[in-house]
């Protein structure tokens, strides 16, 4: 770069600086940057100790700003002599308008955004389908040890459930058939409806039960015990005559029809929701089974039935030519108890709008709290549905034991769910400890519905799940009848977005599995495997995978084999294969021992009739291969052929799955096979390169990169067969627009690049660097960066090199948004080319200089960052002069106002200092460092980190270039850095103290540090102590110790503690050197160890520990035993920190003096009558035992019992 260019830049820069200083005043209260007082003005005196800054005083006594709204002294009192009162708006009104309190706080959507804790708000539609599931009734436990106890009435048996599943499926089939028919012929008649549908629908709708909402399978139509049954029958009772009336009945039956019609508007309100809720299939109105209108007066009359007498009155009689038919033989009329018909509707199980009024309809007003529980953190209106019962004010003395239990559980649950943390803790303990007394039934009857609540928040769910987890341990096999219910609420956790929810779900299910046993788990989950709902099947498959991981795969394998081979339904096969897939995903390489079994289990499904089954099978194979990578190819042997031939036959989604499986299996093969199988599949891959399907594209890219990565595929093969098509189809601008495509293309290209070499790829993509599409340029740069970083630039020829640099420069300059990708790419390319960059460096430097002067801060920042990346290469190219110029320019920019940019500039300066060395640095260090001192005061982390790094480097390498006074000033600034939040900054500051102390001698630095021990902040004191330790380490302890011990005489707790802490760090750092100072500090430690203050003793114990560990084997045993005697009485401290330090110190002394001596202290208390004494002694004993059981052998006491003779030890030769 010519000097003329350089001068232009300098000139512009000066202009900019001048302009910046012109508008300085306006920036005075910009909080993001340093205030003006801390920014060093070049025209000012740098040394504010000698020449005080006058501008600080200039405005003393003036108000520097106008009072803001909060100070209302001007409204306080009217002291003027006005005749008319001055009225103004009240403070509240002003505030209200200023802040809009009532407008913004009552935002109805406030709680509904992303921040709301409600689970339902962030769930996808698919996940919301969990509400379609209902808690099934309790199951019978066929595996119970005492079978007699759990009689047949205790729950549904497996057979019943399977039958009802069958019914469900049939119903689903018929519903589909109806739908299909409807779609086909719109005039489909009502009469075509299967007779089963009507009543069955009714039963589904009217499920009523107070605690557990019923699953439809319970309403088996031939059992008349459930309440809903009666309604179904009532429905049938109403429906049958009306239906008959359609075609074979006399007109008089129209009365029934009229009633049906009438019921639409004057029905009792309670009946309406019952009849219309959850009607999945839109059916004609007349088919809805409705109740005849009821009036309270007509109690004796049975609802829904018309007596024979009434019928006789209504219908034409025999005299008119009609005849009353007998019931056909074998017909039994179903009679249901009619008092249940008017049972109140229960919240539906499907989706329901939350009606805020609804809770109030119960008659009882919402009360703010629940009696007998205490202060809760919150109480939602929904909670009243569950816990309102506690408020009924019933007399507890008159309740049965069961009711009392129920109330107790309710209270505990409420405390756990809504209580404060301490409340929650005790309640959780109580519920855990009494779980068996409460019994599984009552517990789950309350917990599980809570978990199904729609307004449940994450925290509540977590707590309730925790309750389940705890009580599972206690209940053990008592949970068996409730396993399905638990699964219904826990399975949705397995597909939650939140990782921790998934883990929690897995843990619960695996605990359930362990408690209930495999047989129960299978019998409970078996019916769900071919459930009609794919949501149920999916979650069940995941749950099964968890069961497999809990109870071992081999145990589950026979069952899986049976399911995957199911002849009856493809749903079952699909789920079975899915279980295998989930097992592979869940367990990773732990599937390896059972790989063969798993593959054999699903291999027949590769040729299934159902496309879905075939696809999921290929995906399962892919998952298995991924999990077992790089082993286990022999297990896949038998499916290779079906897979490869299958891939030829498939199209679309099925093909994508097959290709995916192929892609994961190829890396497992050895070279020869991999080569063969790749060529076999490549044909299909090449064909699918041009597929428009996004999913297919991704799979193809993945497979290509997997094939390219295997050893068996040669570079030549790739070059000849793949590269051209690949670049033609995937290196197009469109691919750069979609984020996932972009990533996949870059990854695949890099993988291919690993095989075919850098130049082959670069040759093809380098021109894209000058493409007009920015994302495309970015994609190119990223690819180049990755390839060049991993493979170097050795095989890039001169011409390509030129194009490359040119292109990268173009891409760099043409950025509209400054991207880290481009910066990294530039850096990597330059570093890879190394000294071959030399011809281009002037051009690069001038670009940097221009961009350093840019108006946009991000551009400046990026330019500075680029300097730090390429500084090393510039040094290699011998461009020292250029670097000097850059250094000077950067130095001028130290007045930068944006902290991010300033940080980058400091980073650039640091990298220049690093490569050119302190001596050659331009500008000279003696100019640079004073300029850095005020910057040290900047609070921005990036600035702090980079400054301290730079200062530390200078202190380390060239401390002589700056005078001691400047270093002291820096020391003072550094003290502030000791309270930085970032550990790296604190560490760098501490190290810098060491360097400075080394440079200018420890005395002054130490004095500064010691006085800093008096500050209030703990963090600052701790770091000062560390710094003292470092100074002692760098300047030898004898320079520090006297001053430090002298400081201990200050009768101030903080100082003494600080000294002890410093001693602790000091002895930790100096290690073995400490042996010369042990006797010197012992008196001090004596004093500290018998101090009244606990923390004092604790810190002293830490010192003892470090001393003892330092002097192991160096002959200071007497001092150590002395200290042990002082330490030992502290053994009964209870504060965890103190006792830990004490124990550690005793352990350290044990290391120093050997176990024999210390064990003599221990024997005394191991069998002390008081447990409080025994406990710490056993702790010491156990620690000694863990660390050196063998070395304790000679020191065990000789017990003079004949059973405890160790005669071998007495043998003398």
């Amino acid at each position: 770069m010519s000097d003329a260019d350089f001068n232009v830049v300098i000139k512009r820069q000066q202009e900019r600086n001048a302009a910046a200083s012109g508008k300085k005043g306006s920036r005075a209260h910009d909080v993001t940057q340093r205030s003006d007082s801390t920014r060093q003005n070049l025209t000012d005196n740098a040394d504010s100790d000698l020449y005080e800054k006058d501008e600080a005083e200039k405005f003393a006594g003036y108000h520097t700003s106008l009072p803001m709204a909060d100070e209302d002294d001007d409204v306080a009192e009217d002291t003027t002599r006005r005749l008319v009162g001055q009225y103004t708006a009240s403070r509240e009104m002003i505030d209200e308008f200023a802040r809009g309190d009532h407008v913004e706080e009552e935002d109805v959507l406030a709680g509904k955004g992303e921040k709301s804790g409600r689970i339902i708000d962030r769930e996808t539609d698919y996940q919301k389908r969990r509400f379609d599931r209902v808690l099934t009734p309790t199951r019978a436990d066929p595996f119970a040890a005492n079978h007699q106890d759990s009689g047949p009435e205790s729950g549904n048996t497996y057979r019943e459930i399977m039958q009802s599943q069958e019914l469900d499926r049939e119903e689903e089939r018929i519903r589909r058939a109806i739908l299909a028919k409807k779609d086909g012929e719109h005039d489909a008649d009502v009469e075509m409806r299967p007779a089963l549908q009507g009543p069955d629908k009714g039963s589904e709708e009217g499920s009523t039960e107070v605690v557990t909402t019923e699953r439809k399978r319970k309403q088996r139509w031939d059992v008349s015990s459930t309440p809903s049954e009666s309604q179904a029958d009532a429905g049938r009772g109403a429906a049958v005559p009306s239906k008959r009336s359609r075609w074979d009945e006399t007109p008089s039956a129209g009365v029934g029809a009229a009633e049906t019609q009438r019921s639409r508007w004057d029905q009792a309100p309670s009946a309406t929701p019952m009849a219309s809720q959850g009607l999945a299939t839109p059916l004609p109105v007349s088919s809805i089974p409705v109740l005849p209108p009821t009036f309270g007066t007509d109690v004796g009359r049975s609802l829904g039935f018309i007596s024979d007498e009434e019928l006789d009155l209504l219908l034409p009689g025999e005299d008119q030519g009609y005849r009353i038919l007998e019931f056909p033989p074998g017909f039994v009329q179903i009679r249901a108890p009619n008092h249940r018909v008017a049972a109140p509707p229960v919240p539906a199980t499907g989706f329901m709008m939350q009606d805020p009024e609804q809770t109030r309809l119960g008659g009882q007003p919402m009360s703010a709290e629940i009696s007998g529980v205490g202060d809760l953190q919150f109480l939602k209106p929904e909670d009243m549905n569950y816990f309102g019962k506690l408020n009924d004010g019933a007399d507890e003395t008159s309740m049965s034991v069961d009711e009392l239990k129920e109330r107790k559980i309710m209270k505990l649950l409420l405390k756990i769910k809504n209580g404060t943390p301490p409340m929650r803790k005790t309640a959780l303990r109580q519920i855990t400890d009494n779980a068996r007394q409460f019994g599984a039934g009552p517990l789950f009857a309350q917990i599980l519905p809570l978990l199904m609540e729609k307004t449940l928040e994450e925290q509540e769910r977590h707590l309730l799940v925790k309750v389940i987890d705890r009580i599972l341990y206690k209940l053990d096999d008592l949970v068996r009848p409730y396993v399905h219910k638990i699964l219904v609420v826990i399975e949705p956790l397995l597909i939650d977005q939140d990782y921790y929810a998934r883990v929690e779900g897995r843990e619960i299910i695996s605990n359930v599995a362990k408690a209930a046993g495999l047989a129960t788990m299978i019998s409970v989950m078996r019916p769900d495997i071919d459930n009609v709902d794919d949501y149920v099947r999916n979650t069940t498959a995941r749950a099964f995978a968890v069961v497999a991981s809990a109870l071992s795969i081999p145990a589950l394998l026979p069952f899986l084999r049976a399911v995957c081979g199911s002849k009856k339904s493809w749903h079952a096969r699909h789920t079975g294969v899915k279980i295998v897939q989930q097992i592979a995903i869940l367990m990773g390489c732990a599937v390896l021992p059972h790989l063969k079994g798993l593959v054999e289990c699903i291999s027949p499904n590769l040729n299934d009739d159902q496309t879905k089954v075939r696809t999921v099978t290929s995906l399962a194979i892919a998952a298995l291969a991924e999990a077992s990578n790089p082993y286990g190819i022999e297990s896949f042997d038998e499916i290779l052929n079906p897979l490869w031939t299958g891939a030829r036959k498939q199209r679309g989604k099925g093909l994508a799955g097959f290709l995916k499986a192929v892609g994961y299996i190829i890396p497992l093969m050895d070279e020869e096979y991999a080569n063969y199988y790749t060529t076999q599949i490549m044909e299909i891959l090449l064909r699918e390169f041009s597929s428009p399907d996004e999913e297919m594209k991704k799979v193809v890219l993945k497979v290509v990169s997997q094939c390219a990565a295997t050893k068996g595929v040669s570079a030549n093969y790739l070059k000849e067969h793949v590269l051209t098509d690949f670049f033609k189809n995937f290196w197009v601008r469109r691919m750069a627009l979609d984020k996932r495509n972009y990533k996949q293309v870059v990854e695949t290209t890099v993988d291919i690049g690993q095989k075919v070499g850098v130049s082959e790829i670069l040759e093809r993509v380098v021109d894209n660097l000058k493409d007009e599409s920015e994302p495309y340029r970015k994609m190119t740069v990223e690819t180049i960066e990755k390839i060049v970083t991993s493979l170097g630039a050795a095989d890039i020829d001169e011409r390509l090199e030129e194009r490359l640099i040119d292109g990268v420069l173009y891409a760099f300059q043409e950025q509209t948004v400054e991207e880290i990708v481009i910066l990294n790419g530039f850096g990597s390319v330059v570093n890879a080319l190394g000294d071959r960059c030399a011809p281009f460096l002037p051009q690069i430097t001038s670009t940097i200089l221009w961009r350093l002067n840019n108006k946009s801060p991000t551009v400046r920042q990026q330019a500075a960052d680029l300097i730090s990346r390429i500084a090393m290469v510039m040094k290699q190219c011998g461009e020292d002069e250029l670097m000097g110029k850059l250094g000077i320019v950067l130095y001028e920019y130290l007045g930068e106002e944006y902290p991010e940019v300033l940080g980058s500039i400091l980073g650039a300066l640091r990298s220049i200092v690093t490569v050119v060395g302190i001596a050659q640095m331009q500008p000279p260090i003696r100019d640079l460092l004073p300029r850095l001192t005020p910057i040290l005061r900047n609070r921005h982390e990036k600035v702090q980190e980079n400054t301290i790094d730079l200062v530390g480097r200078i202190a380390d390498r060239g401390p002589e270039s700056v005078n001691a006074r400047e270093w002291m000033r820096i020391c003072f600034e550094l003290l502030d850095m000791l309270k930085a939040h970032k550990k790296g900054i604190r560490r760098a500051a501490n190290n810098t103290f060491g360097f400075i102390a080394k440079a200018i001698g420890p005395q002054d630095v130490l004095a500064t540090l010691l006085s800093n021990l008096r500050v209030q902040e703990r963090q600052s004191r701790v770091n000062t102590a560390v710094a003292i330790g470092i100074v002692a380490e760098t300047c030898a302890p004898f320079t520090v110790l006297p001053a430090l011990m002298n400081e201990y005489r200050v009768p101030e707790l903080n100082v003494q503690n600080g000294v002890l802490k410093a001693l602790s760090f000091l002895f930790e750092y100096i290690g073995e050197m400490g042996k010369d100072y042990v006797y010197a500090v012992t008196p001090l430690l004596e004093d500290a160890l018998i101090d009244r203050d606990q923390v004092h003793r604790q810190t002293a114990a830490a010192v003892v520990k470090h001393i003892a560990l330092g002097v192991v084997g160096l002959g200071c045993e007497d001092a150590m035993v002395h200290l042990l005697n002082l330490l030992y009485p502290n053994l009964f401290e209870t504060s965890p920190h103190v006792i830990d330090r004490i124990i550690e110190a005793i352990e350290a002394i044990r290391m120093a003096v050997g176990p024999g001596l210390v064990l003599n202290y221990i024997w005394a208390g191991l069998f002390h009558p008081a447990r409080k004494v025994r406990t710490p002694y056993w702790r010491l004993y156990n620690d000694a035992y863990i660390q050196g059981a063998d070395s304790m052998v000679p020191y065990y006491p000789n017990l003079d019992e004949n059973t405890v003779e160790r005669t071998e030890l007495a043998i003398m030769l």
Partner: protein
Amino acid sequence: MVSPSTFLYWLTLPRTFPAPDISFQADKLRNQQELDRLQAKFLGTGHPDTSSWEWTTNLQRDTYSSVVGHRPMLAYIAVAENEPISKVRAALIRKMVQPSGPPPGPDDDVDLPRERNA
């Protein structure tokens, strides 16, 4: 600066004794689990309720296993007893079976500190 073993042990410490109070049950449960883990790993570790029989048994077993484990010690004893090394070794290992006799029955008062030396 808690050493791992200390930390582990700290977790195992029951906080209160005895615990009629229900509120410490969960902590006790966790402590018990941690202690079980510690003892599964190091058989010889004890706790405040270790009986002296358990302790002396462990103590003797440790002694024998230490002798068996250090070849020079074994050789030393073998020379002193004028027996082949393997015989001495086998004898020592055999001695590890109930070195302090059978465990005390339920009616023996085991919890009294029985050790008289220090």
